[in-house]
Every structure is written in structure tokens, then in C-alpha cells.
């Protein structure tokens, strides 16, 4: 089996001591595969940047180990790790030209001048900044500086590239462009990217796999579809996309499991959401707004009253209230003929297929 690009085992990081101690990372283990676009996603203060800085060597762990392709990294300073970083502030050297910035790593590695020059050309072409070698970083726009930072970090062909919220300073349009650009660079260079962001959309669109973090711990690791469609924890379901939460108790009858909801309705659960469970067990279920369907009052389903109807062009969002007062959102695409002519205050039924129900662990 191929060795993982990065492996972290039981990583902990505590800042300060005594009563002021902050546990930025608490016993985190993860494996990042070769040539993978891996994202660390979470709100600010969740420990994602600390984890990145531990991999880069800018901080040393309080406990645990990090391996790069099976080799122990712990204790090595940043300049002895074949890992490069794109910093949030870009951190371009203002007293050097763009070309000198890109060549910096190769120069420190003692590569000959000819190779450095060729490499600078090649890297600037890769990020579409040909002819900018003699400019100063301060003469460039934010987007261009971002590209220089990328070229500089990729120039010495690191085994892993770390990116610390590199797109957060860019405006929306540029950010979208750079998302595609980053994905292209990762595919073309075949380098493992570890990307830190608090933007769930960014994480979903770019990553091969992502880790959702909160309070110094990893809650779930998986491909974007897995994370979105099968969140295991309430925090994950809530942080990524919109989710409806339903509370209830499980009743097992033979092979099938049914959840008796707090709102009075019943939901039959398929294998994943049902088993293993015992009678009377309390459950929290998550349902994505686009996976639920609104039906007329006479049909099967959970009874609900329509609060607000928000037309959003491609789709319409219905804000409903279930009989016990729980808020529930349904989003349906505005296909031809599919639009329901429903007004605020109307009584309806909400239909949820067993496959759309995700059972949460907390």
C-alpha cells in the first residue's frame, strides 16, 4: 500500500499553561493521501490553522507525532521540511522582485542559477504571470500577489503544499476564479494540497476529502458528498449547508425501524439510519431542505403550516412550522409545472423518503 503523504497520530497542542491554558488541538489523528486536495474546515478557533502550522513546523506539538511519507517530522524546523506554505497574508518579500521571490527557496537549497532562472520562468507561466519577474510585489494586485505566493511555494516542488485561508482576502469573483485555478494547479503538479478554510462552499467545491473540525477535534473526515449527505454529528450537519433537525424515539418492528417524532408524525428509517438501535432510544435526525417534498394537506406525511415562501429564481424556499412548533425548511427547484402555488398560512404535508433521513450521533 502507498504511504500516506501526511499522517498525524494523537496530536495535541496547548498554548499557555495553568488556568490560562488553551487546548488548540486535542488528540487529533488523521491521514492525508498522496496527491490529494485535502481541506481542514471549521469555524475560527477550531484548531485548523494550528494543525496546519504543526505540519509546517512553525509550532511544535505538545503531544503526538507527524509523519511525512512515513518519516518522522516532529522536532524538525520548517526549513528542513520539504513542505511549503502559502500564507494568509501572502508574506511576499517586499524588498525582492517577483522573480527573486519565486527563486528564494531554490536559492536557499543551493540550486544553480541556470536552474533557478528556468524554474522561475516555468512557475510564472504556470500561474499566468509571464513577464512579471522584474516587478515588485507591491506593484501587483491582490490576486496577482496571491499567484506569486503560489508560484514561490511550488517552485521547489514540495511534497506537500499548505494553504492557510489564501482566498479570504480576495473579492467574490476573484475567489471563484482562484478556486478553479487552485484545483487546476493541484491536478497539474500532482502535489498534495492541504487547504485551510472556514468557507464550507469553498471546501465542498475544491476538496477530494475534507475534515470538519470543532474545538480542537476532528468531527468527521470524508469526501464532500459523504460529508454533505451523511453528516454524523449535529455540528457537521449544521455547519455545512442548511439542515432540518427532528427529535424523536425509535421503535423497532422486525426488520424495520420507525422514528416517532416529537411533532407527532412518524418517519420510517432505512438500514443506515435505523440500525443498530433499540426500542425507545432517543434520536436526532437530519434532513436536507432539498430532500423533502411538500404535498397537499390530504396526502401522507408530517403535518405543517407554511410560514413564508421565498422565491429565489432557480428554486423556492418554504419556511414551515411543524405541529410541535419545530421550524422546518423545504427547498424545491422551480422546474416547469413543479411550482406549487402555496400561500403563507396554508396547511400542507411534508414527505421525507427514508434515504433522505440521516441519523446523528449527538
Amino acid at each position, binding site marked *: 500500500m502507498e504511504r500516506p503523504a501526511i499522517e498525524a497520530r494523537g496530536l495535541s497542542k496547548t498554548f499557555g499553561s495553568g488556568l490560562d491554558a488553551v487546548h488548540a488541538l486535542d488528540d487529533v489523528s488523521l491521514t492525508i493521501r498522496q496527491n490529494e486536495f485535502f481541506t481542514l474546515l471549521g469555524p475560527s478557533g477550531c484548531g485548523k490553522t494550528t494543525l496546519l502550522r504543526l505540519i509546517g513546523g512553525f509550532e511544535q506539538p505538545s503531544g503526538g507525532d507527524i509523519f511525512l511519507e512515513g518519516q518522522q517530522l516532529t522536532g524538525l524546523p520548517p*526549513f528542513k521540511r520539504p513542505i511549503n506554505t502559502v500564507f494568509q497574508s501572502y508574506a*511576499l518579500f517586499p*524588498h525582492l522582485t517577483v522573480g527573486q521571490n519565486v527563486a*528564494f*527557496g531554490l536559492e536557499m*537549497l543551493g540550486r544553480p542559477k541556470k536552474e533557478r532562472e528556468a524554474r522561475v520562468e516555468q512557475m510564472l507561466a504556470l500561474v499566468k504571470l509571464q513577464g512579471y519577474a522584474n516587478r515588485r510585489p507591491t506593484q501587483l494586485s491582490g490576486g496577482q500577489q496571491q499567484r506569486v505566493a503560489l508560484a514561490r511555494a511550488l517552485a521547489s516542488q514540495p511534497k506537500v503544499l499548505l494553504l492557510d485561508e489564501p482566498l479570504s482576502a480576495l473579492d467574490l469573483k476573484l475567489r471563484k476564479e482562484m478556486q478553479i485555478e487552485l484545483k487546476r494547479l493541484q491536478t497539474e503538479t500532482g502535489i498534495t494540497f492541504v487547504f485551510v478554510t472556514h468557507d464550507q462552499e469553498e471546501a465542498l467545491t475544491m476538496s477530494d476529502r475534507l475534515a470538519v473540525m470543532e474545538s480542537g477535534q476532528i468531527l468527521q473526515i470524508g469526501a464532500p458528498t459523504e460529508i454533505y449527505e451523511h453528516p454524523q454529528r449535529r455540528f457537521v450537519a449544521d455547519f455545512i449547508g442548511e439542515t432540518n433537525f427532528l427529535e424523536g424515539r425509535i421503535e423497532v418492528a422486525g426488520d424495520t425501524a420507525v422514528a416517532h417524532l416529537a411533532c407527532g408524525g412518524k418517519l420510517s428509517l432505512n438500514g443506515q439510519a435505523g440500525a443498530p438501535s433499540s426500542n425507545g432510544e432517543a434520536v436526532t435526525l437530519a434532513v436536507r431542505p432539498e430532500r423533502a417534498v411538500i404535498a397537499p394537506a390530504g396526502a401522507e406525511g408530517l403535518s405543517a403550516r407554511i410560514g413564508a415562501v421565498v422565491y429565489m429564481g432557480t428554486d423556492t424556499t418554504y419556511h414551515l412550522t411543524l405541529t410541535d412548533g419545530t421550524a422546518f425548511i423545504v427547498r424545491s427547484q422551480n422546474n416547469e409545472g413543479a411550482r406549487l402555488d402555496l400561500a403563507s398560512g396554508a396547511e400542507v404535508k411534508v414527505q421525507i423518503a427514508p434515504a433522505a433521513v440521516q441519523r446523528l450521533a449527538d
Partner: protein
Amino acid sequence: MRVDVSNPLWRFRGIRAATWLFFAYLYLPIVVLIVLSFNENRLATIWSGFSTQWYGVVLGNDDIMRAATNSLVVATTATLAATFAATLAALGMAKTRFIGADGISGLIVLPLVVPEVVTAVATLLFFILIGFRLGLTTVIVAHTVFCIPFAYLPIRARLEGMDKALGEAAADLYASDWQAFRRVTLPLLWPGILSGAMLAFIISLDDFVITYFVAGAGATTLPVYIFGMIRIGITPEVNAISSLMLIVSILFVTLSFLVGRMRR
């Protein structure tokens, strides 16, 4: 500094006159000194015609030239030593936060607020106590000490304005600590260092009190020499030396200011 004239608070009667009065208060004595340095008359305060002869007399006076040389030797040596120490101090203070850092920061700049005559007496007593013979060396040592805070402040300010990620970026790109310092930190810090050095130079060049206390025989600097001349009476010669020193001071302060603004 620019005053926002659209602010009604600044539009009261007499502000112009008050401003002129203030500047006159500050600079009129200096203007008078410069004007009188071109006075032909032997009596400094009686104007009898324009002449540059006193500048010639100053430059031809061996004692004055010896004092000026002493001043330059002291200022240059003290500046180099103080700037070196201040740079190391600023780097050390910026590198890591540690318990008592604020206290040490205060200690470094404390000489700025200690009454100079106290420092002078203390330094003199210290030299006598350890049996250090007073001379040019004692002046240089004393100057180095009080120049450090002046050199330290601009360097520290420059360091604080620097993105911390720059040092990390250098380390990330395979630069050892020394390489990162030489290739990234030092070039970016250079304007601060130059600015601090020039400030230290001026402070050393102008110092009288401490020098007067710790200077031994043959270690007379220009300010001490001028003080000696003045005891006999104000001559146009004194005005001429003072004007020359003023020009050097203004030159250095301006340079220090300009360099400090470079690549901000």
C-alpha cells in the same frame, strides 16, 4: 501635521497670530544666533556689518578643530556600538514574548527619562570606583550607554511594523535562521537601523552634561569647549561654531526622518 480647516474648532480669531508667536518663541533665538554669526563686530551683540570671517577663525583655531575631532570620534564610535546593541535588543525583544518583557522594555528606554545630571554623577562615580582613568574612552563608554535607547526606538518600531509571517516564509523556503536574518529581516530592518544610528549620532554630538562630568584631560568635545568659551564672553566665534553644529544636526535629523520613511 495637517489641520483640517473644515473643522469649525480650528476657525477661531487669532489662530494665525498665535501660531506665528509660537514659532517665533521656538526659533527666533536660533535665527538671531545664525544672523549674529555673520556679524563683523568683535562684540557679538552689536551689529556692524556682514562678514564670514568668524567661520574662517573657527576653522583656523587648532583647539576648536581638536574638540571637533574628539566630538566626531566619540559620536561615531558610540553610534556604532549603541546601534549594534540596540539592534540586538530590538531583535531579542521582538522574537519571543517572555515573563517580564514589558519591564525589560521599560528598562531599555529608562535612560530617556532619568535626569541627565544624575546619570552624569552616577557614571563619574562608577568610573572612579572601578579605577577607570578619565579620558576619551570614558566619554565613549558613557555616550554609548545613553545612545542605546535613542537607537532602539526606531529599530523596534520598524520591527513591530514588519509582518511576522515574512520570517516564517523565509524559514518555510529553506532559509536557516541566519540566512533568514541576512536575506529578509536585515534588509527590511535597515532603514530603522540607519534612522536609529543617525539619531544616536546627533544625541552624542550634542551632549554636554554627561561629557562635562566624565571627560578627562584631552577629551574635550565641541559642546564642552563652547561652554568654556562662553565663560569668557559671547564672541561671534561661538555663534559661528554653534551655527555649524546646528547645520550638522538638522542634516542628520532630516536624513534620519527620510530614511525612516523609506519602504514603509
